[in-house]
C-alpha cells in the first residue's frame, strides 16, 4: 500500500493522502462514495444484518441510503465552509473539526464531548486521520461504521491498514515522531 501524494483540504489544518492506483485522494473518495447511490445501496445490502442489528435502530436500506447522503451533505458543507473561511465558528478565529482519538488498544471510539454542528447525534460516517501536530491532521481513510468497534468488519480492518501505511509514510518523510501522534476520527459522537 503506497502513498503517491498528499493534498490540502483545509490549509494548514487538514490534509489527505492518495494511495497508489486510486483516482483521487482518500478524502475526495469518501465523499464520492457517500454520494454514490449505487455504492451505498450495495453497501447496505451487503451489511444488512449489521444495519438491522439494532446498534443504530432497525433501518431499511432505503432509509440508510437517504440518511448517509443527508449526513454526508451536512458534514461536507461544514468542512467546505471551514476550508473557505478558515474557521468553523464566525465568533471564533480557529478551526474545530471535532476529531476524536481512537483507542489504540481496541480501536473503539473514545466518546468525547464535542461541539454539535448540525449532524445527527449518532452519525455512522467516519473519517480517519493521523494527528501530526495540534490541529493538524492527515486523512487516510474512512467509512460507514455500523458496528461498535472497528476490528469487527473487513471494510473497517482495511482502514486500519491504511492508517498504519500512512503512519509509516509520515515517519519516512520525517513528519511524525514515534510518540507524538494519535489515530483519530471525525465524528459527532456526544
Amino acid at each position, binding site marked *: 500500500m503506497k502513498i503517491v501524494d498528499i493534498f490540502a483540504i483545509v490549509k494548514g489544518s487538514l490534509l489527505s493522502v492518495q494511495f497508489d492506483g486510486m483516482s483521487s485522494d482518500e478524502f475526495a473518495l469518501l465523499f464520492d462514495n457517500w454520494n454514490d447511490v*449505487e455504492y451505498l445501496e450495495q453497501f447496505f445490502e451487503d451489511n444488512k444484518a449489521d444495519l438491522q442489528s439494532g446498534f443504530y435502530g432497525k433501518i431499511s436500506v432505503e432509509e440508510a441510503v437517504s440518511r448517509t447522503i443527508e449526513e454526508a451533505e451536512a458534514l461536507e458543507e461544514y468542512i467546505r465552509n471551514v476550508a473557505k473561511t478558515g474557521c468553523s465558528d464566525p465568533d471564533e478565529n480557529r478551526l474545530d473539526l471535532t476529531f476524536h482519538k481512537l483507542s489504540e488498544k481496541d480501536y473503539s471510539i473514545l466518546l468525547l464531548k464535542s461541539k454539535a454542528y448540525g449532524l445527527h447525534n449518532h452519525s455512522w460516517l467516519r473519517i480517519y486521520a493521523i494527528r501530526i501536530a495540534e490541529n493538524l491532521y492527515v486523512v487516510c481513510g474512512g467509512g460507514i461504521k455500523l458496528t461498535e468497534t472497528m476490528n469487527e468488519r473487513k471494510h473497517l480492518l482495511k482502514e486500519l491498514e491504511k492508517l498504519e501505511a500512512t503512519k509509516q509514510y509520515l515517519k519516512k518523510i520525517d513528519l511524525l515522531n514515534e510518540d507524538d501522534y494519535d489515530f483519530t476520527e471525525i465524528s459527532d459522537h456526544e
Partner: protein
Amino acid sequence: MNKDEILNKLQNVVSTEPSKWHEDADFRFQNKEWLKRSQCVALNILRTLRAKDLSQKDLAERLGVSPQLVNKWVKGKENFTFETVAKLEEALNIELMSVTGFEGIQKTELKMVEIPYSVLTQNIQPEIKEHSLEMNVISFTCSEVHYDDYKKTI
C-alpha cells in the same frame, strides 16, 4: 518538532494541485436541489431492479441503451430528462416522478386520428372558414372536437 516546523516541511511534500474534493464539493453544493431528486430516482431504479431480480444490463437491453449509461443513471448524478424518466417508468412499470396535473392529462386519453376533410367541415364549420386544415387538426387534438362525436359520424 513544533507545528511551524511541520508546516514548513509540509510545503515541500503537499501537492501544488488542490484536492479534487474542492471542485466536487462546490458542484454538490451548487446543484444539491436537483441532485437530491436524481439520487431519489436512482435509488428507486436500483431497488426495483433488485426486487424484480433484474440487472442493469437487462434494463439497458429493454431500453436499447448501453449498460454504461444505465450505470451512470444509478449513481444519482444524472440530470434526467422527462423523456428518460418516462422510458424508465414504462420499462420498470413504476412511477419515478410525480408531476402536478399529470394524472389528469393521462386520464383524458386524447387521441390523434385522421378525419376526412368533409367530416371536419361539417362539424366545425365556423372555424374552418377562418383557419387552415392543419390548424383544425391541431384544435381537434386539443379536444375542441370530441373523438366520440366524430366516431358517431362514421
